[in-house]
């Protein structure tokens, strides 16, 4: 079973309400670095996705999420999935565009849906190195059906990553 984090209490530092310590300006020399205020706890409808099964448009389960890639701005850009193989032999690890994933409602353990079939990502370059720019597989064309470049071109279709 996948560890689900539904309506998970989340710690936030940025928009925590100003605690009393901050509202009353203290004499600078008195307090050594003031203890940071305790975080505010908020409920967020969100789930963990590591290890979750991924389903292609044809309904076949094609793999599992093993990692998530973020860019320098902190935006989630891609999910790394392991797909294929037999008892762990012959598994391929590829990165797919985050925008092509559709997630089930919070709290559901249904499969994550990917707009690409196993056939479409089978030739995608392997994801190997955490530290290098990843080649990310994208659908041939989001709106127009037609044969176009389908994988591994980071310059193509720089979709603004959907923030969920």
């Amino acid at each position: 079973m996948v560890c689900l984090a539904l309506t998970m209490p989340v710690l936030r530092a940025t928009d925590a309400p100003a605690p009393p310590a901050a509202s009353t300006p203290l004499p600078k020399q008195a307090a050594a670095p003031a203890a940071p205020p305790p975080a505010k706890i908020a409920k967020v409808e969100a789930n963990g996705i590591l290890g979750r099964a991924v389903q292609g448009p044809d309904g076949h389960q094609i793999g599992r999420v093993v990692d998530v890639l973020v860019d320098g701005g902190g935006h989630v850009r891609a999910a790394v999935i392991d797909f294929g193989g037999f008892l762990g032999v012959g598994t391929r690890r590829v990165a797919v565009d985050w925008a092509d994933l559709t997630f089930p409602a919070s709290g559901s353990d249904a499969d994550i849906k990917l707009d690409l079939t196993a056939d479409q990502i089978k030739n995608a370059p392997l994801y190997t190195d955490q530290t290098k720019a990843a080649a990310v597989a994208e659908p041939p064309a989001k709106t127009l059906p037609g044969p176009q470049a389908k994988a591994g071109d980071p310059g193509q279709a720089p979709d603004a990553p959907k923030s969920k």
Partner: protein
Amino acid sequence: MLGLRERQTAPGSTKPARSGGTAPDGPPVDRRSEAGLDWLNFFTANLQTAFGPFVSVYLTQRAWTQSDIGMVLSVGYAASMISQVPAGALVDATRQKTRAAGAAILAIIAGALMLAFFPTLLPVMAAEVSHGFASCMLGPAIAAISLALAGRAAGAAGLRLGRNARYASIGNGVAAGLMAVVGSTLGARAVFILGAGMAVPGLFALRLIRTAAPADAPRTAAAGPPQPAREGIFRLLADRRLLWFALCCAAFTLSNAYMLPLAASEATASLGNDASLLIGACIVGPQIIVALLSPAAGRVAEQRGRRPVLIAGMVALPVRGLALALISGHPGWATWALIPVQLLDGISGAAFGVLVPLVTSDITRGTGRFNLCMGVIGLAMGAAAAASTFAGGMVADQSPPLAFLVLAGIGGLGVVLAAVMPETR
């Protein structure tokens, strides 16, 4: 103690000696022990399958991070490498090899259950470490029991080891098939429960076996534990035949270990999800060939010598590597040709399954160090497997067909090594 078979009466064995047991002389006719050993091989083969690459799949499903998975697997690998030789020495020091095998099976069952029910960092690491040590004991212990059971009758050892390899490969193939079915229907955890459950009959099979004195027991101290002769170890390790054979085994594994993973990954790239079926066939198919060929491998090794079998097992490698390189260059339906090409792996599997214990027994005859030397060979093969995956992976990043060619080349080198290796019979 040539030709002499003795029943060990260890303090723990409460069972009275059976009248139909081993005869003090003549050919071994202990059918009960023979059958026990057959089933022991059958039921313990799956323990390796369950702990293989599937651990990584399972832990991924348990939402483990890839770095944690990598760390745990590295710890398991390091544990098995470090314990190869000490575990062998421990089995050598044990008078009752069946006890050593039983303890190892229990430890591996416990590890599988721990993986199934406590998939958190420390228990999993403990399971990996105990599996590493226990499997280093189990393989040599089973081989030692087999040699003891076969006795010193001419040719008996090779036939018995051929039978071992046959039952182990059937067990492996059946386990792989069952695990795939169970894994896809009941989930990954069930695979480990199945693995643990399948090993339990192995413990009962073990109880059927009446061991004679270890076949490698020193002539002077047949009844007692081997004398701790430290310089004996070093003299043995300096034995050129052991060095040659370790080199042969290392070359074999260096060439062999990465062929299937790379071919399977290529198959996935070529066929997508359909590849799972093909990869399954590539894993089970060679086991069928091993089951068919290994009794013949044992017979030929006894009648014609070890070297022809060694060369046959080694020649299959470059042939396979070249064929895999060809297929790799032609994606698509040609990928299905992987299945017949992988059958060549069965030839190598049968040859080495029989020869590793047989040649080691040749080299250690009368020294009481059989299991230690099995550990040395295991160490050489384990290191070669890691090197194969690492170096093969680096070349494959550039060009997979080139990687197959390099692996084939190493296999060719292995053929040369096998051809010049001194006969040990």
